[in-house]
């Protein structure tokens, strides 16, 4: 696809891919639906590399529209096919189907999710109750061969019953459930802060609009001059109200900082994905950098905010790492440490034997985080074999013969810190 980059042809090709893979799979007596999913996966992850943004947007919009059409069509088809009276007579089957769907979801959520790691209890309830069924269940039921006879009708009615239940029963009760489980906590302070900030922002937008009108000559200068001082002083009052909440409730500022930090990390991650898709960076570089970002997203955001604000309690530093890092690994090493929330100090040095430039990194390690820091350094610093050109020996004819030497990734000394202080003013 990267060689074409014409939005009409590219869109046509994706259409051919969707229908072609389905027909081909059906000819081979394998699942057409799965074939289309695979084709889509491959095209989405590999096929679109090098395709320009505008083409990608056209393809995306096209398929979004097709999905919307298909979704509506499936529900329309169902509406046409369903016989309410027949559904009422098979209500027992439908109840069984709903029970089976709920039971299987309960098994997956409550039993299997224990394998992957610990999910909070409340989240599990939401995951269980949030398994809404829709167009896909219906489409699969409709695609059953008619050779099944009357059983096909029953299956379709069961599927429709399940969808109806999940739309009305689950869909309408999920919000009260979330509120009941207290998963979203909105404090009074936060609401008040939002209110004040929104007022200030709205007021400023109004002033900017009037100023624009005045500059374009749409507002007489007399009117502007008489109302602008009033508006300005009102804006100052509103902004100072916002500042006041932040001073009174520093935790709001911390929340906002954490949110901003997370947003920045997510944006970085998206950009890396784009860079990989456009072939600017290789898969290995992508994996490496994304791992760092993911660790930073998952890691305790408080550490990061603490590093910025240096407020509150002192960190409890228990160990000091002195790491000797090769010059070329320095960038990766310092950013791996930063991403994991370790501040570092670096000193330029050079190796004793080859006199090659390297760096000493000093890193303070809070209690229990030693392995985190060492893992970060390990992923950033790789040992490798390098070649040194041999010094030419007088009388010999070997010119430029290279001697392989093994360069170590990083040498790490760990000291116990007896006492740690951050001297404040």
């Amino acid at each position, binding site marked *: 696809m990267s060689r074409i980059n014409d939005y009409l042809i590219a869109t046509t090709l994706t259409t051919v891919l969707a229908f072609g893979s389905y027909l081909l799979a059906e000819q081979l007596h394998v699942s057409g639906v799965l074939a289309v999913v695979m084709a889509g996966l491959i095209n989405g992850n590999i096929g679109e590399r090098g395709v320009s943004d505008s083409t990608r947007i056209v393809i995306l919009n096209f398929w979004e529209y097709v999905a919307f059409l298909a979704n509506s069509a499936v529900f329309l088809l169902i509406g046409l096919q369903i016989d309410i009276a027949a559904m009422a007579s098979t209500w027992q089957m439908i109840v069984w189907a709903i029970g089976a769907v709920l039971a299987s979801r309960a098994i997956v959520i409550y039993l299997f999710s224990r394998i992957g790691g610990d999910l909070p209890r409340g989240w599990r309830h939401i995951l269980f109750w949030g398994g809404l069924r829709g167009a896909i269940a219906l489409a699969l039921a409709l695609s059953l061969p008619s050779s099944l006879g009357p059983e096909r009708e029953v299956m379709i009615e069961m599927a429709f019953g399940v969808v109806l239940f999940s739309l009305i029963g689950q869909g309408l009760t999920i919000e009260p459930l979330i509120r009941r489980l207290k998963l979203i906590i909105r404090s009074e302070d936060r609401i008040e802060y939002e209110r004040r900030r929104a007022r200030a922002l709205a007021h400023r937008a109004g002033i900017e609009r009037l100023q624009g009108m005045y500059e374009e000559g749409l507002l007489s200068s007399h009117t502007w001059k008489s109302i602008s001082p009033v508006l300005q002083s009102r804006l100052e009052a509103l902004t100072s109200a916002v500042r006041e909440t932040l001073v009174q409730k520093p935790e709001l500022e911390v929340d906002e900082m954490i949110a901003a930090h997370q947003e920045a990390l997510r944006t970085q991650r998206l950009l890396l994905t784009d860079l990989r898709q456009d072939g600017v960076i290789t898969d290995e570089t992508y994996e490496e950098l994304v791992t760092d970002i993911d660790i930073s997203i998952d890691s305790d955001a408080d550490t990061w905010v603490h590093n910025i604000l240096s407020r509150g309690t002192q960190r409890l*530093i228990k160990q000091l790492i002195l790491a000797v890092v090769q010059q070329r690994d320095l960038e990766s090493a310092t950013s791996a440490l930063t991403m994991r929330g370790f501040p570092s*100090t670096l000193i*330029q040095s050079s190796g004793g034997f080859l006199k090659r430039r390297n760096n000493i990194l*000093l*890193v303070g390690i809070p209690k229990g985080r030693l392995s985190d820091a060492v893992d970060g350094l390990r992923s950033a610093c790789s040992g490798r074999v390098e070649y040194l050109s041999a010094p030419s020996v007088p009388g010999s004819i070997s010119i430029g013969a290279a001697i392989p030497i093994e360069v170590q990734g990083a040498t790490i000394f760990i000291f*116990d*810190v*007896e*006492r740690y202080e951050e*001297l404040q003013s």
Partner: protein
Amino acid sequence: MKLILTIIAHQDTDAVISSLIENKFGVTKVASTGGFLKKGNTTLLIGIEGKRVDEGLEIIRNACSESAEIGHHKATVFILNVGSFKQL
């Protein structure tokens, strides 16, 4: 015997070193850089008997200027135990 390893701001270096020397502390200065912003700072190595550690910290605290950026502490101090110390 303890080793005080302290990281201080560039502008405080001269003041801290001279008041340490006035008070008979041996000090070695190493130019260093912060890992995050790559801003220059100074690392000082100070070898000292255990009972004079607090005195040393007090000297560093007083010699660091008040103009440190808001929200930043003046100095980061690691105190390490020294296994054996010899002066040749």
